[in-house]
Structures are given as structure tokens and as C-alpha cells.
């Protein structure tokens, strides 16, 4: 059986990749995908712990995360379509009316 910490390291790497992509990417869709990557890294960690403990509650948590992520995606894509229609661009650097 694969040891639990292998999963955890993979999950940490995926989460880190998500954070890096969120910070450096300029396309809204790509940024959105990086958030999904982070959420799935979380899911992996939950399932790994759940298996290590031999309990099911971590897996139940994952189901909730998946459902909520779907709801969030619906709203998020709606907002992205709104931006694309209003500005004809998906580059976040062009979305800059509000400044510090």
C-alpha cells in the first residue's frame, strides 16, 4: 500500500502549483482553473487522511467540497461571461477601472 505521506506530498505540490498559477496567470479562465486545482488538492488530502484513519468522514467532506465547487463554478463562469461581454477581453490586467 502507498504510504499516506506520499499522497500528502502530492497534494501539497498540487496546491502549491495552484497558488503559483493563480498569482502569475493573466487569463481569467486559467486563474479559475488554478482554483479548481487547489480544491482538488484539498480533496486528495482529505481522502488520504480518511484512508489512513480508516474512517469515512473525510470522504463525506470531499463530496460536499465537490458539490460546493460545482455551485461556485456556475456562479464564477457567469461572472466571467459578464466580463467577457462587457469588455471583449479575458485578460485580468485590462480589468482595471478600480484602483488603489
Amino acid at each position, binding site marked *: 500500500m502507498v504510504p499516506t505521506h506520499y499522497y*500528502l506530498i502530492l*497534494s501539497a505540490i498540487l*496546491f502549491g502549483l*495552484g497558488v503559483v498559477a*493563480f498569482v502569475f496567470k493573466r487569463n*481569467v479562465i486559467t*486563474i*479559475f482553473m488554478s*482554483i479548481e486545482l*487547489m*480544491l482538488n*488538492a*484539498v480533496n486528495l*488530502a*482529505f481522502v488520504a*487522511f480518511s484512508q*489512513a*484513519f480508516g*474512517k469515512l*468522514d*473525510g470522504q*463525506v*467532506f470531499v463530496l*460536499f*467540497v465537490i458539490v*460546493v465547487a460545482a*455551485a*461556485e463554478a456556475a*456562479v*464564477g463562469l*457567469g*461572472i*466571467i461571461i*459578464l*466580463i467577457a461581454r*462587457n*469588455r471583449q477581453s479575458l485578460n*485580468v490586467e485590462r*480589468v*482595471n*477601472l*478600480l484602483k*488603489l
Partner: protein
Amino acid sequence: MSPPVEDILRVMPELIFCGFGVLLMLLQPFLRERNGMAFLALCGAGLGTLASIFPLVNAGSAFGELIRADGFSGFFHLLVGLVAFLVILASAPYLERERLAPAEFYALVLFATAGMGVLASAQELLTAFIGLEMSSISSYVLAGYRRESLKAGESAMKYFLLGSFATAFFLYGIALVYGATGTTRLSQMSAADPGGILLRLGLALILIGLGFKVAAAPFQVWTPDVYEGAPTPVTALFSAGPKAAAFALLLRIFSTVPAANEFWFWAFWILAALTMFVGNLGALVQTNVKRMLAYSSIAHAGYILVAFCAVAFTRGDDERLTAGVAAVLYYLLAYALVKLGAFTVVSHLGGAGEKRLDLNDYAGLGQRQPVAAAALSLYLLSLLGLPVTAGFLGKFYIFKAAIHSNLIWLAVLMAINSVIGAYYYLRLIVIMYMRDSQPGVDRIPFPASVNLVLMITAFGTIYFGLFPNFLIGFTSHPGFILGR
């Protein structure tokens, strides 16, 4: 098998908020009357608020400890219910002026409120996550509700991206805490080894996630942009509701997980100091009233974090703990009333399309619209912390808690910040009363419902400023924070 009646009564406020939200959306094709929908929404908010009285008299857990309905959660239910009620009342004329669809707006406000309620009574991190997302997802939509406006779309996008980013951190934190303790129940975490690296990392990530939600520096970057771009009644909701609910969850994690208590002390110290300075210094240079109030709300989150720091320092001293918690609750209520009132004034003085938001547009307001100017001055003075207003006592209680916990330096920083804050609050008052109106600025009559909101918030600000004993007695009741 159906759950016991008591369990259902303990989640009744959420059921009512959601039920009325769904009802509004179902009736929307048949009910063309704007006032009818506003009335229905007000009924939902009012009944939900009334239903939160039950947990106050009959505290306990529901649904196998997923929810803990006690005095603490009851207080927050009353607070967010009141906020929803006032926001709906103030937004009815706003929606008509901006020609926005009312039914979905009210429904989203009610859904968000239900989420905040769940967040305030969560006894399990899964429930907390669901509550957080219920309120966040509704908020993302509300932020972009003025679809034609480029600013609103931008505000919704920024809120959505940074909000989900923060949620991912929050979730990863929960996953690590689960790995360290083997449970997501807050009440079962007390046995965990506080020195574990996994637990500490998890708690730090949870703090980052919730730090975004309460707009604590350095996680505050989204706040001014989102507050400026969102419709102003929604800004009022953001500044009062979700912030209070996120603080509620922080307090609950704090009081039930001993490991969090010690570990978070320095984190709160730094967050509090940084947040106060970022908020106040940022507000100094703003020329847009909405943005200035947004920075001021960051600064106030910093003051509340000072009280958190004091609570963290108590280490098992119950008397000081309850005093610190009472200070937080009092401040949150005083702050919510004032911010609601101030944003309501701003939303109606903004005029069609929210064009008049510059400081100069407020010149001569004292002669043009004495009532609005007086109300806004009262709110600004309360934010500043002048005696007789609730804001003064809020600051006083936090000072007291900080001094009792020997946080002298933090108290000094807070005093310095209050002085910086005085500059920009007083500047707006001076502009309103000492300068003449600019040409072409008309008087904007306030509808009756807006006047009612102003009356309620102004009355509350003065009432709690003069007679705080009832509230403080209520919130510092021993065992107010249960689950210990």
C-alpha cells in the same frame, strides 16, 4: 426517521430565510408589484430574526452536534437578521431607481443571511464551510448585480476570484487539522496535541482563509475594489454581515480548540497592528466616499482584532475571556449599525447610476439636506469614537480588554490609529458643513423607508452609547461561549 422538533427549531431562522428566498423566486413571475416583493422579503427577514430567539432560551446542539445553538449564535442570528432587514428596507427604492430586478436581489440577500447564520452556529468545520460558501456565493452575485456597470462586473470578478482563493486555503487548513486530530468536530479537538506541526499549519491556513473574509491586512486587497464596485446597499450588507459571521467562527474555534488559542496570539497581534495602519493610512488619501468607508471598515476590523488578541492572551481566565468576548460582540453590533446607516445615506445621495460619490459632491450638504447631513455626521462621529455614541463605548471596551491583558503596545497603536482616523472622518464633516454646494447639485429627497432605516440605526447608535448595560450584561453572561 425525522429529526426531533427541538433540532428543527434550532435551525428555524435558516429555514425561514431560505424558505422565503425560494418563495420570492417562485412568485416572481406572478407578482409584478415591487412593493409586494419587498414586503415578502421583509417578512422573511423579520420572521427569521424572531425565530432566532428560541435558541436563546433553549440552548443546545442539533443534528448530532453539527450545529450548536446557544446565546452566542443567537446573538449573531439577531445581528445578521437585523442587518438583512435593514438592507432590504433601504434597497427597495435603490433597486427601483437603478431599474434592477428585485426578487432575485432579496432572495440572494436572504440566502446570504442564512449562510451567515449557519456560520455563526457551526460546531463542525464541515457546517462552517457550507455556511461560508452559502454566504460567499450569494455575495459574489450580489456584488455584480448592476450588470451594465463595468465597475460592478469588475468588482464581482475580483470578489469571486479572491474569495474562492481564500476558501481553498480555508479548506486546506481544515484538511490538515483533520489529519492532525482525526476529526472535524470542534468539541473533540480539545484533546489534540497543541505542538503538532500539522495542526499548527492547518490552523494558520484557516486563519488565512478567514482573514480574507474579515478583510484583515495583508489579506485586505480586495476590500476597497469590491466595496466600491458593488451596489451600495450590498456594500452595506458586506461590511456588516459576513464580517460579523466570520468573526463569530474565529471566536468559536478559539474558545473550543485550546491549541488555536496559544498559537494564534502573535498572529493576531501582527494582523491587528497591520490592519489598523493599512486601513487608516489608506483612507487618508481617498477622494471617493465609498472607498474611504471601505478603508475605514478595514481599520475597524483591526480594532476588533485587538480584542481578539486580548481574548487569546487570557489563557483560561474565564472572567477576562468573557469580558474580551463581550467587547467583540458589542463592537460588532455598534459597527454594523453605523456602517449600515452610513452606506444607506451614501447610496441615496449617489443619485442615478451612483455618480455622485466624490468628497466634493458632499460640499454644502448641511444646508441642502440637513437631516441626511446630521445622520451621516452621527455615524462618522460614532466611527471616530466620540462619547455618547456606541462607537465610543465599543472602543472603550476593547481598550479595557487590551489593558487588562497587558497589551500596552497594542493599545498605544490603537490610540494612534484612532487619531489618524479622526482626520478623515472630520474632513468629511467639515466639507459637509463648511463649504458651499457645487453648482448643479440638486437636493435628493429621501424615501420613507430610507428615513426609517436612518432612524433605526441612529437611535441604536445613541441608545447603545448611553445604555450599554443590557447588552454587555447579556453578552458577558458566564457560559455565553459554550462548548468548553
